[in-house]
């Protein structure tokens, strides 16, 4: 019987629950110590799904909500590999994304930012990784938007990512940022991430991924928790 467990969540890589510069964390983050729960991998399950659950255009945000034309904005390719900490590709795993449109406006009804909606853009997509753990999206570069956390607060351009990996405990929800964004220095969500880990959230511009005459390419690899391969060290 497989008795292995997941490698411990590396809390040096993740933001603390309460980070006061990010105002809404103050009343929402747990304050008491977490209780250790070393559940065996054979008891940890990700949900069941398959490529048949996805629509043919789910990975193409420039077309999956088009009504009467193409969405406005700069077309980009966002691709990368999902790996575990041992460097092994995480195959057949779901990657869900959502984002603002080129003007910095979300479709969500609560977003009242005075910027236009785009009738041809929803901003949601999903893909399942291939045998190399690779996913690929075609989308529009999201705009920055104001969010009221502090005076003149603007979120840097970002795309939200949601992944399961192979286990209940490998769940990850994160955000991908763009290289060279001047707003990163002022963003408490990005700055709330431990300094040595932050740069892992920034995608890499890639001329190899960029397609001639069509779209710029960004690479964003994602590392999920994997089976604990060095139990004797802990």
């Amino acid at each position, binding site marked *: 019987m497989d008795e292995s467990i997941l490698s411990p*969540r*590396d809390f040096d*890589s*993740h*933001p*603390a629950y309460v980070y006061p510069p*990010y105002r*809404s*964390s*103050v*009343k*929402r*983050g*747990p*304050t*008491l110590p*977490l*209780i*250790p*729960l070393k*559940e065996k991998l054979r*008891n940890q*399950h990700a*949900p*069941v799904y*398959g490529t048949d*659950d996805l*629509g043919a255009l789910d990975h193409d945000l420039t077309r*999956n*909500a088009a009504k009467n034309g193409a969405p406005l904005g700069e077309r980009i390719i966002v691709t990368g590999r999902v790996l*575990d*900490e*041992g*460097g092994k590709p995480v195959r057949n795993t*779901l990657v*869900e994304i*959502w984002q603002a449109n080129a003007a910095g406006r979300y*479709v*969500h009804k*609560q*977003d009242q930012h005075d910027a236009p909606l785009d009738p041809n853009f*929803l901003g*949601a*997509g999903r893909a399942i990784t291939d045998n190399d753990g690779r996913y690929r999206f075609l989308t529009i570069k999201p705009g920055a938007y104001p969010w009221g956390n502090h005076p003149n607060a603007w979120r840097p351009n970002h795309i*939200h990512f949601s992944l399961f990996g192979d286990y*209940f*405990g490998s*769940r*990850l*929800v*994160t*955000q991908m940022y763009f290289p060279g964004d001047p707003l990163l220095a002022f963003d408490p*969500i990005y700055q709330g*991430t*431990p300094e040595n*880990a*932050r740069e*892992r*959230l920034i995608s890499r511009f890639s001329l190899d991924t960029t397609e001639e005459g069509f779209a710029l390419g960004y690479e964003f690899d994602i590392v999920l*928790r994997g089976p604990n391969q060095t139990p004797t060290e802990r």
Partner: protein
Amino acid sequence: MALKETPSQTVGPYFAYGLCPQQYDFDYKSLFTPDMAGPETPGEHITLIGRVIDGDGNPVFDAMLEFSQVDANGRYPASREAIAQNGFRGFARVGTGTDEQQRFIVRTVKPGSENAGEAPHVNVIVMMRGLLTHAFTRIYFEDEAAANAEDPVLAAVPAARRDTLIARRSEQAGSIVYQFDIRMQGEQETVFFDL
């Protein structure tokens, strides 16, 4: 172990159209729904109902929760074919933004025991704006007192805090409801696990 984990970031306030679009009436198929089981699933049909409460005592209207559990026989669904056969998905996703009282409402069957000596429970992931890293908790059942007393995970929780993990059973309009509020802070702060 060469690679470092990608850091978590908050799910933010605008997840609905991407992660639970149909629940929020967006024109995009939901991959996961608040229904963990279908009407044809064998077992005792129950509804899990609760709210997420912040440190000021206010219900959170923009939380997203995910639930995972075994069926009445203690098994997770093995395949999409198995789900098609008995309607048991073993996984639910729900936002708190569509109910007037900011409740989550999840229809399921009461889980069996996954392993000998373990009390029936539901695994929960909690996300919301303001939570930079998601939190894990569990729902145990009030009417399983004997099994709860033997459960090794509950035993590792300080006795004074165990109560925060127990759902209360009642009958409402002919259906079995388990009430389970998740308190992020305060005297009754829910136990969260380092899974």
